[in-house]
Protein backbone atom coordinates (compact mmCIF):
# COMPACT_ATOMS: atom_id res chain seq x y z
CA UNK A 1 0.00 0.00 0.00
CA UNK A 2 1.52 3.29 -1.11
CA UNK A 3 0.80 6.44 0.90
CA UNK A 4 2.03 8.53 -2.04
CA UNK A 5 -0.64 7.16 -4.38
CA UNK A 6 -3.36 7.60 -1.74
CA UNK A 7 -2.30 11.24 -1.30
CA UNK A 8 -2.26 11.64 -5.09
CA UNK A 9 -5.91 10.67 -5.28
CA UNK A 10 -6.77 12.93 -2.35
CA UNK A 11 -5.01 15.86 -4.02
CA UNK A 12 -7.12 15.27 -7.14
CA UNK A 13 -10.30 15.75 -5.06
CA UNK A 14 -8.86 18.70 -3.16
CA UNK A 15 -8.17 20.51 -6.45
CA UNK A 16 -11.74 19.78 -7.43
CA UNK A 17 -13.32 21.09 -4.21
CA UNK A 18 -11.05 24.14 -4.16
CA UNK A 19 -12.53 25.30 -7.42
CA UNK A 20 -16.07 23.93 -7.52
CA UNK A 21 -18.72 26.16 -5.95
CA UNK A 22 -21.37 23.46 -6.55
CA UNK A 23 -19.43 20.92 -4.54
CA UNK A 24 -18.78 23.34 -1.70
CA UNK A 25 -22.47 24.15 -1.71
CA UNK A 26 -23.22 20.45 -1.31
CA UNK A 27 -21.12 20.43 1.85
CA UNK A 28 -22.61 23.56 3.41
CA UNK A 29 -26.03 24.27 1.91
CA UNK A 30 -28.03 21.09 2.54
CA UNK A 31 -26.75 20.47 6.07
CA UNK A 32 -27.57 24.08 6.92
CA UNK A 33 -31.12 23.79 5.54
CA UNK A 34 -31.65 20.49 7.37
CA UNK A 35 -30.61 22.11 10.57
CA UNK A 36 -32.86 25.14 10.09
CA UNK A 37 -35.96 23.01 9.38
CA UNK A 38 -35.39 20.52 12.19
CA UNK A 39 -34.44 23.32 14.56
CA UNK A 40 -37.79 25.05 13.98
CA UNK A 41 -39.68 21.76 14.31
CA UNK A 42 -37.98 21.19 17.65
CA UNK A 43 -38.79 24.71 18.86
CA UNK A 44 -42.41 24.17 17.82
CA UNK A 45 -42.59 20.87 19.69
CA UNK A 46 -41.24 22.53 22.81
CA UNK A 47 -43.72 25.43 22.45
CA UNK A 48 -46.78 23.20 22.18
CA UNK A 49 -45.58 21.48 25.32
CA UNK A 50 -44.83 18.04 23.93
CA UNK A 51 -43.53 16.05 26.85
CA UNK A 52 -40.38 14.93 25.09
CA UNK A 53 -37.50 15.27 27.44
CA UNK A 54 -34.60 17.12 25.77
CA UNK A 55 -36.33 17.44 22.40
CA UNK A 56 -33.58 19.72 21.13
CA UNK A 57 -30.91 17.14 21.87
CA UNK A 58 -32.98 14.30 20.46
CA UNK A 59 -33.64 15.89 17.12
CA UNK A 60 -30.64 18.11 16.49
CA UNK A 61 -28.23 15.53 17.89
CA UNK A 62 -29.83 12.85 15.73
CA UNK A 63 -29.72 15.11 12.70
CA UNK A 64 -26.02 15.90 13.12
CA UNK A 65 -25.22 12.20 13.54
CA UNK A 66 -27.40 11.26 10.56
CA UNK A 67 -25.40 13.70 8.47
CA UNK A 68 -22.20 12.00 9.63
CA UNK A 69 -23.54 8.73 8.20
CA UNK A 70 -24.87 10.38 5.03
CA UNK A 71 -21.65 12.31 4.26
CA UNK A 72 -19.41 9.35 5.05
CA UNK A 73 -21.37 7.32 2.50
CA UNK A 74 -21.35 10.14 -0.04
CA UNK A 75 -17.63 10.72 0.37
CA UNK A 76 -17.05 7.30 -1.13
CA UNK A 77 -19.85 7.02 -3.69
CA UNK A 78 -19.57 10.56 -5.06
CA UNK A 79 -15.77 10.27 -5.34
CA UNK A 80 -16.33 7.32 -7.67
CA UNK A 81 -18.94 9.27 -9.65
CA UNK A 82 -16.49 12.15 -10.06
CA UNK A 83 -14.05 9.75 -11.76
CA UNK A 84 -16.83 8.27 -13.87
CA UNK A 85 -18.10 11.69 -15.03
CA UNK A 86 -14.54 12.81 -15.83
CA UNK A 87 -13.85 9.54 -17.72
CA UNK A 88 -10.82 9.22 -15.48
CA UNK A 89 -11.21 5.61 -14.32
CA UNK A 90 -8.91 4.31 -17.05
CA UNK A 91 -6.18 6.75 -16.05
CA UNK A 92 -6.46 5.57 -12.45
CA UNK A 93 -6.71 1.83 -12.93
CA UNK A 94 -4.12 1.64 -15.70
CA UNK A 95 -1.71 3.27 -13.24
CA UNK A 96 0.01 1.39 -10.38
CA UNK A 97 -2.88 2.43 -8.08
CA UNK A 98 -4.35 -0.64 -6.40
CA UNK A 99 -7.99 -1.25 -5.49
CA UNK A 100 -7.03 -1.17 -1.80
CA UNK A 101 -5.34 2.22 -2.20
CA UNK A 102 -8.36 3.53 -4.08
CA UNK A 103 -10.67 2.45 -1.25
CA UNK A 104 -8.44 3.93 1.47
CA UNK A 105 -8.27 7.22 -0.44
CA UNK A 106 -12.05 7.46 -0.80
CA UNK A 107 -12.53 6.50 2.85
CA UNK A 108 -10.13 9.27 3.85
CA UNK A 109 -12.06 11.61 1.58
CA UNK A 110 -15.25 10.69 3.40
CA UNK A 111 -13.63 11.43 6.78
CA UNK A 112 -12.61 14.87 5.51
CA UNK A 113 -16.16 15.50 4.29
CA UNK A 114 -17.66 14.35 7.58
CA UNK A 115 -15.29 16.58 9.53
CA UNK A 116 -16.20 19.62 7.41
CA UNK A 117 -19.96 19.00 7.49
CA UNK A 118 -20.07 17.83 11.12
CA UNK A 119 -18.00 20.79 12.31
CA UNK A 120 -20.17 23.23 10.43
CA UNK A 121 -23.44 21.73 11.69
CA UNK A 122 -22.18 21.81 15.24
CA UNK A 123 -21.32 25.47 14.77
CA UNK A 124 -24.72 26.29 13.23
CA UNK A 125 -26.56 24.43 16.01
CA UNK A 126 -24.60 26.28 18.63
CA UNK A 127 -25.05 29.73 17.02
CA UNK A 128 -28.75 29.44 16.12
CA UNK A 129 -30.16 27.14 18.81
CA UNK A 130 -27.53 27.34 21.57
CA UNK A 131 -27.26 23.59 21.23
CA UNK A 132 -23.86 22.08 21.95
CA UNK A 133 -23.62 18.43 20.92
CA UNK A 134 -20.25 18.22 22.70
CA UNK A 135 -22.12 18.50 26.02
CA UNK A 136 -22.79 14.80 25.56
CA UNK A 137 -19.10 14.40 26.22
CA UNK A 138 -16.53 11.97 24.88
CA UNK A 139 -18.88 9.03 25.36
CA UNK A 140 -20.33 10.03 21.99
CA UNK A 141 -17.03 9.72 20.12
CA UNK A 142 -16.98 5.90 19.67
CA UNK A 143 -20.54 6.13 18.30
CA UNK A 144 -19.47 8.79 15.79
CA UNK A 145 -16.53 6.65 14.66
CA UNK A 146 -18.89 3.70 14.21
CA UNK A 147 -21.22 5.87 12.15
CA UNK A 148 -18.35 6.79 9.85
CA UNK A 149 -17.57 3.10 9.34
CA UNK A 150 -21.27 2.41 8.64
CA UNK A 151 -21.15 5.20 6.06
CA UNK A 152 -18.11 3.55 4.44
CA UNK A 153 -19.96 0.24 4.24
CA UNK A 154 -23.00 1.77 2.53
CA UNK A 155 -20.68 3.87 0.33
CA UNK A 156 -18.63 0.90 -0.89
CA UNK A 157 -21.85 -1.07 -1.50
CA UNK A 158 -23.25 1.85 -3.53
CA UNK A 159 -20.01 2.23 -5.50
CA UNK A 160 -19.87 -1.44 -6.43
CA UNK A 161 -23.48 -1.27 -7.70
CA UNK A 162 -22.69 1.87 -9.76
CA UNK A 163 -19.53 0.21 -11.13
CA UNK A 164 -21.55 -2.86 -12.10
CA UNK A 165 -24.59 -1.09 -13.60
CA UNK A 166 -23.06 2.22 -14.76
CA UNK A 167 -24.71 5.62 -14.99
CA UNK A 168 -28.24 4.28 -14.63
CA UNK A 169 -27.41 3.47 -11.00
CA UNK A 170 -25.75 6.79 -10.12
CA UNK A 171 -28.83 8.10 -8.30
CA UNK A 172 -28.01 5.55 -5.59
CA UNK A 173 -25.10 7.76 -4.51
CA UNK A 174 -27.73 10.05 -2.95
CA UNK A 175 -30.56 7.60 -2.35
CA UNK A 176 -28.99 4.40 -1.03
CA UNK A 177 -28.45 5.62 2.51
CA UNK A 178 -32.14 6.56 2.86
CA UNK A 179 -33.00 2.90 2.38
CA UNK A 180 -31.38 2.34 5.76
CA UNK A 181 -32.95 5.37 7.46
CA UNK A 182 -36.23 3.78 8.64
CA UNK A 183 -34.49 0.83 10.27
CA UNK A 184 -31.64 2.96 11.61
CA UNK A 185 -34.16 4.60 13.96
CA UNK A 186 -32.54 8.00 13.65
CA UNK A 187 -35.34 10.11 15.08
CA UNK A 188 -37.34 7.55 17.12
CA UNK A 189 -36.60 4.66 19.45
CA UNK A 190 -36.41 1.16 18.04
CA UNK A 191 -39.48 -0.03 19.97
CA UNK A 192 -41.80 1.99 17.70
CA UNK A 193 -40.98 -0.38 14.83
CA UNK A 194 -43.13 -3.47 14.20
CA UNK A 195 -41.51 -6.62 15.67
CA UNK A 196 -40.29 -7.90 12.27
CA UNK A 197 -38.53 -4.62 11.48
CA UNK A 198 -37.12 -4.51 15.01
CA UNK A 199 -35.36 -7.83 14.36
CA UNK A 200 -33.90 -6.43 11.15
CA UNK A 201 -32.95 -3.13 12.79
CA UNK A 202 -30.90 -4.90 15.45
CA UNK A 203 -28.72 -6.25 12.63
CA UNK A 204 -28.02 -2.72 11.38
CA UNK A 205 -25.11 -0.93 13.13
CA UNK A 206 -26.62 2.60 12.91
CA UNK A 207 -29.70 1.43 14.87
CA UNK A 208 -27.42 0.54 17.80
CA UNK A 209 -25.62 3.84 17.40
CA UNK A 210 -28.76 5.99 17.50
CA UNK A 211 -30.16 3.95 20.38
CA UNK A 212 -26.84 4.49 22.12
CA UNK A 213 -26.98 8.23 21.48
CA UNK A 214 -30.41 8.42 23.09
CA UNK A 215 -29.13 6.42 26.04
CA UNK A 216 -26.22 8.84 26.40
CA UNK A 217 -28.74 11.71 26.44
CA UNK A 218 -31.05 10.18 29.01
CA UNK A 219 -28.58 8.45 31.32
CA UNK A 220 -25.39 10.41 30.61
CA UNK A 221 -23.29 7.28 30.20
CA UNK A 222 -22.34 5.25 27.14
CA UNK A 223 -24.26 1.97 26.80
CA UNK A 224 -21.49 -0.56 26.24
CA UNK A 225 -23.78 -3.24 24.82
CA UNK A 226 -24.94 -1.03 21.95
CA UNK A 227 -21.38 0.07 21.30
CA UNK A 228 -20.09 -3.51 21.17
CA UNK A 229 -22.91 -4.58 18.86
CA UNK A 230 -22.32 -1.65 16.54
CA UNK A 231 -18.57 -2.25 16.45
CA UNK A 232 -18.90 -6.01 15.91
CA UNK A 233 -21.49 -5.65 13.15
CA UNK A 234 -19.48 -2.88 11.47
CA UNK A 235 -16.29 -4.97 11.49
CA UNK A 236 -18.12 -7.96 9.99
CA UNK A 237 -19.96 -5.93 7.34
CA UNK A 238 -16.81 -3.98 6.43
CA UNK A 239 -14.86 -7.17 5.70
CA UNK A 240 -17.75 -8.59 3.67
CA UNK A 241 -18.33 -5.39 1.68
CA UNK A 242 -14.63 -4.87 0.85
CA UNK A 243 -14.43 -8.49 -0.35
CA UNK A 244 -17.60 -7.85 -2.37
CA UNK A 245 -16.03 -4.73 -3.92
CA UNK A 246 -12.92 -6.68 -4.98
CA UNK A 247 -15.18 -9.37 -6.46
CA UNK A 248 -17.29 -6.80 -8.37
CA UNK A 249 -14.12 -5.06 -9.62
CA UNK A 250 -12.85 -8.39 -10.91
CA UNK A 251 -16.17 -9.12 -12.67
CA UNK A 252 -16.11 -5.64 -14.25
CA UNK A 253 -12.60 -6.29 -15.57
CA UNK A 254 -13.66 -9.66 -16.97
CA UNK A 255 -16.69 -8.18 -18.71
CA UNK A 256 -14.85 -5.06 -19.92
CA UNK A 257 -17.13 -2.80 -17.88
CA UNK A 258 -14.39 -0.77 -16.25
CA UNK A 259 -13.53 0.90 -19.57
CA UNK A 260 -17.20 1.55 -20.37
CA UNK A 261 -18.56 2.51 -16.97
CA UNK A 262 -19.05 6.21 -17.82
CA UNK A 263 -20.75 5.58 -21.15
Amino acid at each position, binding site marked *: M*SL*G*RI*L*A*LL*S*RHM*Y*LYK*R*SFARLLEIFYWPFLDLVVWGFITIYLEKVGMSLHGALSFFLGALILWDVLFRAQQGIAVSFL*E*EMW*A*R*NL*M*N*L*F*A*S*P*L*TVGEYLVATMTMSVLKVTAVGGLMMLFAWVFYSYDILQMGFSLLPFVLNLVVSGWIIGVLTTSIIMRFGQQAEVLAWGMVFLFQPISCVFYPIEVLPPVLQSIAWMVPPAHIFEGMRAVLTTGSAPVTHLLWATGLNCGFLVIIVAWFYHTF*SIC*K*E*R*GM*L*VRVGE
Partner: protein
Amino acid sequence: MPASDSINSPVVEVRNLTKRFQGFTAVDNISFDIKKGEILGLLGPNGAGKTTTIHMLLGLITPTVGTIHMFGLDLATHRETILKQVNFSSTYISMPFSLTVEENLKVIARLYELKHIQQRIDDIVKKLEMEDIRHRLTRKLSSGQMSRLTLAKAIMTEPKVLFLDEPTASLDPDIVNKIKSFLKEYQRSEGLSILYTSHNMREMEEMSDRIIFLQRGKIVAEGTASEIIQRYAQRDLEEVFLKLAREQNGP
Protein backbone atom coordinates in the same frame (compact mmCIF):
# COMPACT_ATOMS: atom_id res chain seq x y z
CA MET B 1 24.23 -1.43 -25.71
CA PRO B 2 24.50 -2.31 -29.42
CA ALA B 3 21.39 -1.61 -31.45
CA SER B 4 20.99 -5.26 -32.45
CA ASP B 5 20.95 -6.40 -28.81
CA SER B 6 18.38 -3.86 -27.79
CA ILE B 7 16.15 -4.78 -30.72
CA ASN B 8 16.30 -8.49 -29.92
CA SER B 9 15.10 -8.48 -26.36
CA PRO B 10 11.28 -8.50 -26.09
CA VAL B 11 9.81 -6.31 -23.37
CA VAL B 12 6.23 -7.35 -24.14
CA GLU B 13 5.34 -10.98 -24.80
CA VAL B 14 1.74 -11.81 -25.63
CA ARG B 15 0.80 -15.45 -26.01
CA ASN B 16 -2.51 -16.93 -27.22
CA LEU B 17 -4.43 -13.89 -26.05
CA THR B 18 -8.19 -14.30 -26.39
CA LYS B 19 -11.09 -12.22 -25.16
CA ARG B 20 -14.68 -13.37 -25.42
CA PHE B 21 -17.64 -11.22 -24.38
CA GLN B 22 -20.83 -13.26 -24.01
CA GLY B 23 -20.45 -15.26 -27.19
CA PHE B 24 -18.59 -12.58 -29.16
CA THR B 25 -14.85 -13.05 -29.64
CA ALA B 26 -13.18 -9.63 -29.68
CA VAL B 27 -9.59 -10.94 -29.69
CA ASP B 28 -8.91 -14.42 -30.99
CA ASN B 29 -5.76 -16.26 -29.99
CA ILE B 30 -3.16 -13.64 -30.89
CA SER B 31 0.54 -13.86 -30.02
CA PHE B 32 3.18 -11.20 -30.58
CA ASP B 33 6.25 -9.59 -29.04
CA ILE B 34 7.35 -6.00 -28.80
CA LYS B 35 11.09 -5.68 -28.67
CA LYS B 36 13.05 -3.09 -26.77
CA GLY B 37 13.12 0.15 -28.70
CA GLU B 38 10.61 -1.08 -31.27
CA ILE B 39 7.48 0.64 -32.53
CA LEU B 40 4.85 -1.95 -33.33
CA GLY B 41 1.86 -0.75 -35.31
CA LEU B 42 -1.49 -2.35 -34.61
CA LEU B 43 -3.70 -1.93 -37.63
CA GLY B 44 -7.23 -3.00 -38.38
CA PRO B 45 -10.73 -1.74 -39.11
CA ASN B 46 -13.12 -0.67 -36.35
CA GLY B 47 -14.06 -3.66 -34.22
CA ALA B 48 -10.94 -5.63 -35.14
CA GLY B 49 -9.87 -5.85 -31.49
CA LYS B 50 -7.11 -3.21 -31.30
CA THR B 51 -8.47 -1.26 -28.35
CA THR B 52 -9.49 -4.43 -26.48
CA THR B 53 -5.92 -5.69 -26.90
CA ILE B 54 -4.52 -2.46 -25.47
CA HIS B 55 -6.98 -2.58 -22.57
CA MET B 56 -5.83 -6.12 -21.76
CA LEU B 57 -2.19 -4.99 -21.92
CA LEU B 58 -3.05 -2.24 -19.42
CA GLY B 59 -4.76 -4.69 -17.07
CA LEU B 60 -8.15 -2.99 -17.53
CA ILE B 61 -9.73 -6.08 -19.08
CA THR B 62 -8.97 -9.62 -17.95
CA PRO B 63 -8.15 -11.98 -20.85
CA THR B 64 -10.35 -15.05 -21.28
CA VAL B 65 -7.31 -17.10 -22.32
CA GLY B 66 -3.63 -16.34 -22.75
CA THR B 67 -0.79 -14.59 -20.99
CA ILE B 68 0.83 -11.16 -21.06
CA HIS B 69 4.39 -10.76 -19.86
CA MET B 70 6.23 -7.46 -19.66
CA PHE B 71 9.88 -7.14 -18.62
CA GLY B 72 9.75 -10.90 -18.01
CA LEU B 73 6.94 -10.56 -15.44
CA ASP B 74 3.38 -11.85 -15.67
CA LEU B 75 0.88 -8.97 -15.74
CA ALA B 76 -1.66 -11.09 -13.86
CA THR B 77 0.61 -11.38 -10.83
CA HIS B 78 2.94 -8.33 -11.08
CA ARG B 79 0.48 -5.64 -12.12
CA GLU B 80 1.85 -2.88 -9.88
CA THR B 81 5.52 -3.37 -10.83
CA ILE B 82 4.69 -3.52 -14.52
CA LEU B 83 2.30 -0.57 -14.64
CA LYS B 84 4.90 1.70 -13.03
CA GLN B 85 6.89 1.30 -16.25
CA VAL B 86 4.01 1.52 -18.69
CA ASN B 87 1.71 4.32 -19.79
CA PHE B 88 -0.83 5.04 -22.49
CA SER B 89 -2.53 7.78 -24.40
CA SER B 90 -5.76 7.56 -26.29
CA THR B 91 -8.24 9.84 -27.96
CA TYR B 92 -10.94 7.94 -26.08
CA ILE B 93 -9.89 9.01 -22.61
CA SER B 94 -10.13 12.30 -20.84
CA MET B 95 -8.74 13.90 -17.71
CA PRO B 96 -10.69 15.56 -14.85
CA PHE B 97 -12.32 18.67 -16.36
CA SER B 98 -12.28 20.84 -13.25
CA LEU B 99 -8.53 20.66 -12.82
CA THR B 100 -6.03 22.73 -14.76
CA VAL B 101 -3.56 21.07 -17.12
CA GLU B 102 -0.78 21.46 -14.56
CA GLU B 103 -2.90 20.11 -11.68
CA ASN B 104 -3.80 17.05 -13.74
CA LEU B 105 -0.14 16.43 -14.52
CA LYS B 106 0.73 16.82 -10.81
CA VAL B 107 -1.85 14.22 -9.81
CA ILE B 108 -0.52 11.77 -12.41
CA ALA B 109 3.07 12.42 -11.30
CA ARG B 110 2.08 11.64 -7.70
CA LEU B 111 0.20 8.49 -8.77
CA TYR B 112 3.39 7.22 -10.40
CA GLU B 113 5.44 8.45 -7.41
CA LEU B 114 7.77 10.51 -9.59
CA LYS B 115 10.55 12.63 -8.17
CA HIS B 116 11.25 16.27 -9.13
CA ILE B 117 7.65 16.68 -10.19
CA GLN B 118 7.77 20.39 -11.00
CA GLN B 119 10.86 19.94 -13.14
CA ARG B 120 9.25 17.11 -15.09
CA ILE B 121 6.09 19.11 -15.66
CA ASP B 122 8.10 22.11 -16.86
CA ASP B 123 10.01 19.85 -19.26
CA ILE B 124 7.03 18.07 -20.75
CA VAL B 125 4.98 21.27 -21.06
CA LYS B 126 7.86 22.82 -22.98
CA LYS B 127 8.47 19.77 -25.17
CA LEU B 128 4.82 19.51 -26.20
CA GLU B 129 4.43 23.29 -26.53
CA MET B 130 1.78 23.55 -23.85
CA GLU B 131 3.08 26.62 -22.00
CA ASP B 132 0.08 28.70 -23.01
CA ILE B 133 -2.44 26.18 -21.66
CA ARG B 134 -0.70 24.88 -18.53
CA HIS B 135 -2.94 26.93 -16.21
CA ARG B 136 -6.08 26.45 -18.29
CA LEU B 137 -8.96 24.34 -16.99
CA THR B 138 -9.10 21.00 -18.77
CA ARG B 139 -12.76 21.55 -19.70
CA LYS B 140 -11.69 24.54 -21.77
CA LEU B 141 -9.21 22.61 -23.90
CA SER B 142 -9.87 21.88 -27.55
CA SER B 143 -9.79 18.21 -28.61
CA GLY B 144 -6.30 18.71 -30.01
CA GLN B 145 -5.07 20.24 -26.74
CA MET B 146 -6.69 17.38 -24.83
CA SER B 147 -4.78 14.88 -26.99
CA ARG B 148 -1.56 16.71 -26.17
CA LEU B 149 -2.43 16.60 -22.45
CA THR B 150 -3.05 12.84 -22.48
CA LEU B 151 0.21 12.38 -24.39
CA ALA B 152 2.01 14.59 -21.88
CA LYS B 153 0.70 12.56 -18.95
CA ALA B 154 1.91 9.38 -20.66
CA ILE B 155 5.40 10.64 -21.56
CA MET B 156 5.96 12.47 -18.28
CA THR B 157 6.14 9.21 -16.32
CA GLU B 158 9.10 8.11 -18.49
CA PRO B 159 7.61 4.71 -19.34
CA LYS B 160 9.56 1.88 -20.91
CA VAL B 161 6.50 0.76 -22.84
CA LEU B 162 3.95 3.15 -24.27
CA PHE B 163 0.54 2.25 -25.72
CA LEU B 164 -0.76 4.88 -28.10
CA ASP B 165 -4.33 4.42 -29.28
CA GLU B 166 -4.80 6.87 -32.17
CA PRO B 167 -2.75 9.57 -30.43
CA THR B 168 -2.83 12.04 -33.29
CA ALA B 169 -6.52 11.85 -34.14
CA SER B 170 -8.15 15.29 -34.16
CA LEU B 171 -4.84 17.15 -34.17
CA ASP B 172 -3.89 19.68 -36.82
CA PRO B 173 -1.15 18.58 -39.27
CA ASP B 174 1.48 20.87 -37.78
CA ILE B 175 1.03 19.44 -34.29
CA VAL B 176 0.82 15.88 -35.69
CA ASN B 177 4.16 16.42 -37.35
CA LYS B 178 5.70 17.80 -34.16
CA ILE B 179 4.30 14.97 -32.06
CA LYS B 180 5.54 12.31 -34.49
CA SER B 181 9.01 13.86 -34.53
CA PHE B 182 8.97 14.15 -30.75
CA LEU B 183 7.86 10.53 -30.32
CA LYS B 184 10.46 9.21 -32.76
CA GLU B 185 13.25 11.19 -31.14
CA TYR B 186 12.13 10.30 -27.63
CA GLN B 187 11.75 6.64 -28.57
CA ARG B 188 15.28 6.55 -30.02
CA SER B 189 16.93 8.34 -27.11
CA GLU B 190 15.13 6.41 -24.35
CA GLY B 191 14.91 3.00 -26.05
CA LEU B 192 11.16 3.20 -25.59
CA SER B 193 8.93 0.42 -26.94
CA ILE B 194 5.65 1.59 -28.43
CA LEU B 195 2.45 -0.11 -29.50
CA TYR B 196 0.78 2.27 -31.90
CA THR B 197 -2.67 2.30 -33.45
CA SER B 198 -3.84 4.78 -36.05
CA HIS B 199 -6.22 5.01 -38.96
CA ASN B 200 -3.71 7.13 -40.83
CA MET B 201 -1.85 4.63 -43.03
CA ARG B 202 0.92 7.01 -44.03
CA GLU B 203 1.55 7.78 -40.37
CA MET B 204 1.55 4.07 -39.59
CA GLU B 205 4.11 3.35 -42.30
CA GLU B 206 6.23 6.25 -41.17
CA MET B 207 6.14 5.43 -37.45
CA SER B 208 6.16 1.64 -37.21
CA ASP B 209 9.14 -0.71 -37.41
CA ARG B 210 6.71 -3.58 -37.78
CA ILE B 211 2.96 -3.87 -38.28
CA ILE B 212 0.38 -6.37 -37.10
CA PHE B 213 -2.87 -6.40 -39.01
CA LEU B 214 -5.92 -7.48 -37.01
CA GLN B 215 -9.14 -8.65 -38.58
CA ARG B 216 -12.08 -9.95 -36.53
CA GLY B 217 -9.73 -10.31 -33.58
CA LYS B 218 -7.16 -12.43 -35.43
CA ILE B 219 -3.73 -11.53 -36.74
CA VAL B 220 -4.00 -11.81 -40.52
CA ALA B 221 -0.72 -10.19 -41.48
CA GLU B 222 2.51 -9.34 -39.73
CA GLY B 223 5.76 -7.77 -40.92
CA THR B 224 7.19 -4.48 -42.05
CA ALA B 225 4.93 -2.20 -44.07
CA SER B 226 6.69 -3.09 -47.33
CA GLU B 227 6.47 -6.84 -46.61
CA ILE B 228 2.72 -6.57 -46.02
CA ILE B 229 2.19 -4.43 -49.13
CA GLN B 230 4.16 -6.97 -51.19
CA ARG B 231 2.31 -9.96 -49.74
CA TYR B 232 -1.10 -8.54 -50.64
CA ALA B 233 0.14 -7.23 -53.98
CA GLN B 234 -1.17 -3.72 -53.36
CA ARG B 235 0.34 -0.32 -54.04
CA ASP B 236 0.40 0.91 -50.45
CA LEU B 237 -0.74 0.15 -46.93
CA GLU B 238 -4.01 2.01 -47.41
CA GLU B 239 -4.99 -0.37 -50.22
CA VAL B 240 -4.11 -3.34 -48.04
CA PHE B 241 -6.24 -1.85 -45.26
CA LEU B 242 -9.21 -1.33 -47.60
CA LYS B 243 -8.90 -4.84 -49.00
CA LEU B 244 -8.83 -6.46 -45.54
CA ALA B 245 -11.45 -4.16 -44.05
CA ARG B 246 -13.86 -4.97 -46.89
CA GLU B 247 -13.24 -8.65 -46.35
CA GLN B 248 -14.17 -8.18 -42.68
CA ASN B 249 -17.21 -6.00 -43.27
CA GLY B 250 -18.45 -7.81 -46.36
CA PRO B 251 -19.21 -6.26 -49.77
